């Protein structure tokens, strides 16, 4: 039962990192698919194909951020308190976007009218693009450091969070998730929409490489330390590999490399942050570190055992879920389901 030999706060720093990595890799392609509605969804059937690629999994993907937030609260209360109160308006916008996106998946198909569906399509697109961008802005600010007072309270304004570096971070996650989503569509669909997704991924991928390289280089020169460079190098190489695989039509390989690229890029940001968790840009003494932000050893021990037992189980049943829904979605899938439904309605009359 004794985990005292381990450096538990550091372990939890990396567990929090792992939960955010899980969130960005998984909900990242949800955001991407949501945004591609604008580019790939030529008619209602197309849009339904796109939405149904993530239909069974968007909720479990989004749950990663809830668990990441709860883990932050439990393992690093100071970090959680400073971050969430400091980034108040940014998080408010993220919350509203996630609300809009989440209800739209469920509400969109409840009525047949085109105007009804168009409204929720728009909410899905905006509700995907906004958090995809703002999470990058938030994490860039964490790495860069923000002004904190001696009680670790954020003393800047909302607009202080929109520095050029932070906006570049936002653009990076926006483009990464967009490409990730487009590649996911190539993996999960068949037919003409898949070819269009492939071309879209190639084009957005080219922009992503430039933006991501600029962001990683800036981060490296300003804050790079420890494991940052090797992780960033893997992230960059994986991104390029993903795009090459996409050009060759190897969508499984491409998707895997996109996932690795996002995972290592987020890990690189955490490596750049380590051993701080919320550095203060005005006075280093006001910053939060793993040490001064962590919970007590007892709490971390309880949580460590829980995570140790349940995380493998969670990964197993989530992996199985992806296996159950491995089949590609086509226009035929949607049209068949439509026929089934109208047959049932016919029978009811």
């Amino acid at each position: 039962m004794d985990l005292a030999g381990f450096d538990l706060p550091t372990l939890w720093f990396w567990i929090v990192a792992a939960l955010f990595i899980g969130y960005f890799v998984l909900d990242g392609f949800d955001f991407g698919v949501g945004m591609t509605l604008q580019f790939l969804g030529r008619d209602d059937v197309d849009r339904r194909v796109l939405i149904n690629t993530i239909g069974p999994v968007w909720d479990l993907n989004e749950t990663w951020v809830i668990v990441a937030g709860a883990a932050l609260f439990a393992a690093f209360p100071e970090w959680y308190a400073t971050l969430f109160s400091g980034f108040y308006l940014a998080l408010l916008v993220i919350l509203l976007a996630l609300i809009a996106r989440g209800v739209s998946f469920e509400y969109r198909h409840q009525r047949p009218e085109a105007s009804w569906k168009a409204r929720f399509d728009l909410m899905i697109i905006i509700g995907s693009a906004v958090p995809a961008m703002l999470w990058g802005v938030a994490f860039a600010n964490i790495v860069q450091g923000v002004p904190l007072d001696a009680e670790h309270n954020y003393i800047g304004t909302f607009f202080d969070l929109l520095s050029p570096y932070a906006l570049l971070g936002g653009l990076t996650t926006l483009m990464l998730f967009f490409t990730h989503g487009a590649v996911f569509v190539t993996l999960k669909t068949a037919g003409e929409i898949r070819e269009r997704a492939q071309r879209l991924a190639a084009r957005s991928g080219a922009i992503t490489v430039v933006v991501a390289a600029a962001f990683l280089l800036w981060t490296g020169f300003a804050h790079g330390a420890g494991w940052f460079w090797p992780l960033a190098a893997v992230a960059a190489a994986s991104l390029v590999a993903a795009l090459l695989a996409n050009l060759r039509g190897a969508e499984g390989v491409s998707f895997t490399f996109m996932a690795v690229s996002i995972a290592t890029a987020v890990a690189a940001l955490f490596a750049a942050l380590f051993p701080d968790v919320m550095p203060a840009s005005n006075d280093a003494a006001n910053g939060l570190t793993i040490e001064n932000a962590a919970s007590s050893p007892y709490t971390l021990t309880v949580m460590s055992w829980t995570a140790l037992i349940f995380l493998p189980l969670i990964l197993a049943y989530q992996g199985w879920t992806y296996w159950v829904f491995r089949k590609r979605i086509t226009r035929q899938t949607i049209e068949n389901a439509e026929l089934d439904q109208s047959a049932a309605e016919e029978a009811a009359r």
Partner: protein
Amino acid sequence: MNELLDPLLLARWQFGLTTIYHFLFVPITIGMATTVAIFQTAWVRTDKVVYLQLTRFFGTLFLINFAMGVVTGIVQEFQFGMNWSEYSRFVGDVFGAPLALEGLLAFFLEATFIGLWIFGWDKLPRRLHLATIWIVAAGTVLSAYFIIAANAFMQNPVGYAINEAKGRAELVDIWELLTNPVALAAFPHTIFACFMVTAGLIISAAAWHLARGQHRESMRPALRLGLWMMVIAAALTTFFGDQLSLSMVATQPMKMAAAEATFNTVCGADASFSVFTLGTPDGYTELFSIRIPYLLSLLSTHSLDGCVEGIIDLQGQYESLYGPGDYTPIIWITYWSFRWMIGLGLAHAAIAAVGLWLTRGGREPRLFRIPPRLIWGVAIWSFPLSLGAMIVGWIFTEMGRQPWLVFGLLPTESGVSPNVSGLEVLISLVAFTLVYGTLAVVEFRLIVRAIQKGPATPSVDEQTGRAEPATTVY
């Protein structure tokens, strides 16, 4: 203007409104997951089409509601840090643990298996697919346990020690935290109340169709199930509510005194329960009341000659314990919310029991010369009123905790984020009000529409003669 932009007041309003709003969806999620699982089990066992119809019909209501529960739940978790950062700093070591356990043990389970259930009809073997909805149901109940254990810490802090150097409460015994006596009573009380609300929705939906003489073959069994569920859940809610009030008297006597607006300590027959009171606006002088002698003593101590401490005595005790200050909750809120909770709850149980009698053995409800339309009309109001009982119950328990955030440890005013301005909270409060208000209208219309559409007839496999659910897509 400054008063309008008081961050503390605005943050309290925001937390109250968003929590109540979130909890409009929670009871249906908890109760309906189990109900749908029961209908689906009946279908798998008997192969009767009507049970599949009911599974799909109530499953649709469940899902319309589920999405709202999920997205409004994220707001709840973020809000502790956003608006209550000092609270988060002070209790995070203790309070964060049940939230993290809730996420790891319950939320992942719910979110994953709900997707498997919705889209797995034609992809999983029948029994495995049935298991997914039971797992969702178990996940909802489990998550309720952790969140109520966290809430119970605010009502009755246990399992912690104060670390003076760090200025915070630290967890010393997770087991003590999870078996908080308040949680052990509040959890079943809340869960069964959730089943009352779900029963309310089932009764309302079924009554709407039966009043029009349609879908009798499916809506009649649904109505009977709803009525039985209401009566049984009401009995259990009452029983555990009684347990909860016992532990409340032991841990938060001020809340009980405020529930009854008992200003002076009273014993025996004087410890009466007032069904209705009119008083002067300050609440200290009673003008008229209807009282049941002994009942308050019975409720608080389970004996006829028990004593109930009054607000004035308790206020004095708390002043010597915690220093000068006002330790009394807002009496008119606690007094009336307590009565509305009990009154609405008991009325539901009584009306459902009458309903069971009137519809026994396949009868059409008939009562004296009351037109059947009126009887069905009463049944249709079951859902909004049971939801109302749930809401006033939460208002009572949280307003009765005031002026404390964590009882005896942290006053509410000390928990608010010091660096979030009144303007920022006003912006978020307005944003949430507009978005939540709009969604409430959309949600309400969709639920009504799904109810009115009625159960669909599933297609039957020609070879096996079995009803086959269609492929589900968004």
